[in-house]
């Protein structure tokens, strides 16, 4: 498959994720000021909540497949910070997937911690890309984290896509409502 098409595909998905995150933030903030927006927020949450863990697992799965495609097929070697983001993203597929099947409330906290840590690394990686001197004054010839292997629309680099995925997972986890309590599970 054409590499440019695949990269563009993941960039479009990342953009869609960003749009959802922005809408969620607007609903969350606007809901505090406006009763109408609060109703929209509650309706959206009502609709998404039962599926949120599964959707978050799906987002993690797509991000994981994208990450593997970029390194194993497109031959973009993952840098040190990419590996830290992988460490956060890959387990989310299992943690959230199993949590969705078992309707396990505990998966929300574990997932949120992993996604939060991953998002922090993504933000640092974006800063290193933008300001390379934050990490070093020179480029490691093998694979510096400041190198942009992908840049769609002037801003969507690989850590930006990862951050979009982590942010969407966090939004979905915030919307998720456990249907089975930990006590019931036990």
């Amino acid at each position, binding site marked *: 498959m054409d590499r440019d098409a695949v990269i*563009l595909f993941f960039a479009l998905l990342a953009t869609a994720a960003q749009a959802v995150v922005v809408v969620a933030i607007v609903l969350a903030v606007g809901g505090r000021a406006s009763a109408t927006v609060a109703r929209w927020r509650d309706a959206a949450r009502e609709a998404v909540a039962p599926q949120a863990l599964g959707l978050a697992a799906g987002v993690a799965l797509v991000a994981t497949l994208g990450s593997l495609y970029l390194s194993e097929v497109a031959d973009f070697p993952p840098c040190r910070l990419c590996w830290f983001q992988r460490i956060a993203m890959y387990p989310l597929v299992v943690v959230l997937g199993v949590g969705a099947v078992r309707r396990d409330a505990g998966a929300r906290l574990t997932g949120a911690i992993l996604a939060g840590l991953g998002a922090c690394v993504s933000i640092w990686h974006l800063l290193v890309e933008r300001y390379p001197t934050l990490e070093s004054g020179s480029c490691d010839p093998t694979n510096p984290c400041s190198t942009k292997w992908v840049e769609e629309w002037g801003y969507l680099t690989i850590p930006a896509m990862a951050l979009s995925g982590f942010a969407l997972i966090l939004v979905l986890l915030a919307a998720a409502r456990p249907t089975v309590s930990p006590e019931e599970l036990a």
Partner: protein
Amino acid sequence: MTSPKPPTDNGSKIWIVAIVVVLVAGVVAVVLARGGSGDEEVSGQTGTVQVGDGSSTTGDGETDTTAGDTGSAAALPEYDATLEEDPAVGATIPTVTGTTFDGDELTIAPDGTAKIILFVAHWCPHCQREVPMLKAHLDDVPMPDDVQLLTVSTSVEPSADNYPPQEWLDRVGWEAPTLADDEAGTIAKAFGLSAFPYFVAVDADGKVVARASGELTAEQFDAVVAQAQG
């Protein structure tokens, strides 16, 4: 008394929406990317390199064993910025011959002229900052007549940012003669490159007087030039 609302199948709808979004993204990506790849290889960005007076490498870095090495200066040790004394200082630089992006032959050798050799990689953001800064500085304070500034473009990667290097250097207005290293980075290895950007200051006797890596300020660059000048 109101009857309870019938259960709605919101779960299925949400999954259908998610799948539609993924499918639409796939179709749009295929249609938009049909225009062709943006990182097609441009000829001349890597060259055929000859190290010493005989042994040569092809563009893909394979050594041509039909030519004999006549015993010119050995490769410089890899630069280690943490060492107080650079073991390469005082060593004679190896002779390397290759071509510029336009295919003209260019040799870097201990030829009686002091020189600064700047190694850059097009994808390296530090090089992308350093080269325009040096260009602006050299417009104000040109290189002294007795010190030559040479560039080696190495570590070329067509899939990476800011490719091709020739276009980048032309865009910046970089005028120093530029040697295109081969895909294996033979010249970079011969000069002990360990990080980008990389500077080797050579005196008129062809001996290394200083090496540096990373972004240099204009003042630091002038100091390196002065060292080469003796």
